[in-house]
């Protein structure tokens, strides 16, 4: 922290100084940057100009590069989901009668509606992909060890929240394919012993009707984003305490000026939007027909991240409850990984862990490919 030592600012008082005398701007700045941008502790007793100066002067690791940029991409995508989601919510009506109609109005009749909808839909899939890749990266680098357990738990919890957001959001269009995809997904969830009935109770019953739709709507718009923001806050709060990454990694990569970091972040954002716009315009999500609870269409596809359990359900005579229980157990096992892998961190042990992780991933990918091929048949 090498802030300017000069105590007396120029006599001219701007609005910042006017506000500064009335509220603690540094505290507000610190709170806001708990959701992104600043990774180092902020001294909230200093005036805000000095804090900004400190932040800009603090060298940061070469962060917005390679796999380490995934967290940043997730934060940008989350912002995009909020903006496009609010715009969609202005016209969307969450009832079985109006849901498909209102979505079609957005997509077909409103100027630019299709673009906002496609950006939201693709943004959601990219967010799932980015957040899962980030989890893999944290695993690969062993960033779940003390004192980084909380960071790992946040990353796992954010993965759950994002997958649930995608799952709840897909039902909202009330399209026949997403509707029946949800029905089939929920059957697996509800077959889980103990947790299944509890979830069915919380989600409004076992039949996907107006009660379930409005609960999905509330979860998608309010509950899950608030949880996500909470975990984001906790992530940055932890980062400010334990630092950006392992010291040896930082030493290898060197440090850069904060402004350079902001520049790379901007470039990353531009690149991300280029990808998103390309996907949204060239590969738009298709609509089929309004969902009919009395007619199941053929060729309903599960989302890409659920192709593996889907393949398992199809190929092996695994009962649905066992499949659901397996998924739940896997999710909890991933969460508890830091407690399970405590102890010595020798290179040999780390290599073995990585190998185990790669093996699990390979099985998952193989099953996913199997599931994707099944659908095409």
């Amino acid at each position, binding site marked *: 922290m090498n802030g300017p030592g000069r105590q007396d600012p120029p006599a001219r008082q701007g609005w910042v100084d006017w506000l500064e005398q009335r509220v603690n701007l540094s505290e507000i700045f610190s709170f806001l940057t708990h959701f992104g941008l600043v990774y180092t502790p902020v001294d909230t007793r200093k005036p805000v100009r000095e804090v900004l100066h400190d932040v800009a002067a603090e060298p940061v690791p070469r962060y917005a590069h390679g796999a380490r940029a995934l967290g940043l991409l997730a934060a940008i995508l989350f912002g995009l989901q909020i903006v496009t989601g609010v715009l969609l919510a202005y016209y969307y009506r969450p009832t079985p009668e109006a849901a498909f109609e209102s979505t079609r109005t957005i997509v077909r009749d409103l100027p630019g509606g299709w673009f906002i909808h496609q950006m939201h839909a693709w943004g959601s899939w990219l967010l799932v992909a980015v957040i899962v890749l980030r989890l893999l990266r944290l695993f690969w680098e062993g960033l779940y060890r003390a004192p980084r357990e909380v960071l790992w738990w946040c990353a796992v919890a954010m993965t759950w929240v994002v997958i649930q957001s995608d799952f709840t959001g897909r039902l909202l269009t009330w399209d026949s394919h997403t509707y029946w995809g949800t029905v*089939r997904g929920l059957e697996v969830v509800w077959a889980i012993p103990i947790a299944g009935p509890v979830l069915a*109770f919380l989600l409004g*019953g076992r039949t996907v009707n107006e009660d379930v739709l409005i609960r999905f709507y509330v979860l998608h718009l309010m509950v899950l984003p608030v949880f996500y923001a909470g975990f984001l806050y906790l992530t940055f709060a932890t980062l400010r305490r334990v630092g950006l990454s392992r010291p040896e990694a930082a030493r290898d990569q060197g440090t850069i000026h904060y402004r350079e970091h902001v520049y790379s972040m901007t470039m990353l954002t531009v690149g991300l939007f280029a990808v998103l716009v390309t996907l949204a315009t060239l590969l738009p999500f298709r609509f089929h027909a309004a969902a009919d609870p009395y007619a*199941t269409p053929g060729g309903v596809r599960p989302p890409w991240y659920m192709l593996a359990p889907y393949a398992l359900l199809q190929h092996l005579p695994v009962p649905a409850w066992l499949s659901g229980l397996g998924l739940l157990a896997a999710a909890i096992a991933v969460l508890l990984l830091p407690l399970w892998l405590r102890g010595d961190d020798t290179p040999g042990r780390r290599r073995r862990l990585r190998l185990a992780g790669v093996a699990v991933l390979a099985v998952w990918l193989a099953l996913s490919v199997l599931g994707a091929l099944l659908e095409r048949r």
Partner: protein
Amino acid sequence: MPIPEERPIRLPAPAPPDRRRFLTVLSQAFLALWGLGAAAVVGAYLKAPEKRDAERTVNAGLLADYRVGEGRLVRHGITPFYVVRLDATRVLALSAVCTHVRCILGYDPARRTLVCPCHDGRFDLSGNVLSGPPSRPLPGYPVSVRAGEIFVQV
């Protein structure tokens, strides 16, 4: 900003351990009761009103309207079912909800089977599983024909 000098706060003399523990347990018990009460109230609110099908007897139309071998889906509440005319007089009613993951079955009049569009499970008209992942047979419903009209007891 000068931080005011802190004056030591005089605490009351500690209660005897027995009494303190008793009071702690008591207040924890009260809090737990409050929590249970709040959970019960919220839970009762969260329980979605159960949607029961009001009618138990469903009119599935005139027997004369069905051709022999024809099956029709009757869109009845949460228990949709197929009505199939077997021959001149016999009619049967069979659930249209697959016992695997609750997809709505399609009726194949040529083979007289019910086929699931989701996982290709197949049922015969007695409800038995012919092939595919379903593990339980389809439930059937009693049918009566009165004055040429088909009634199904759901």
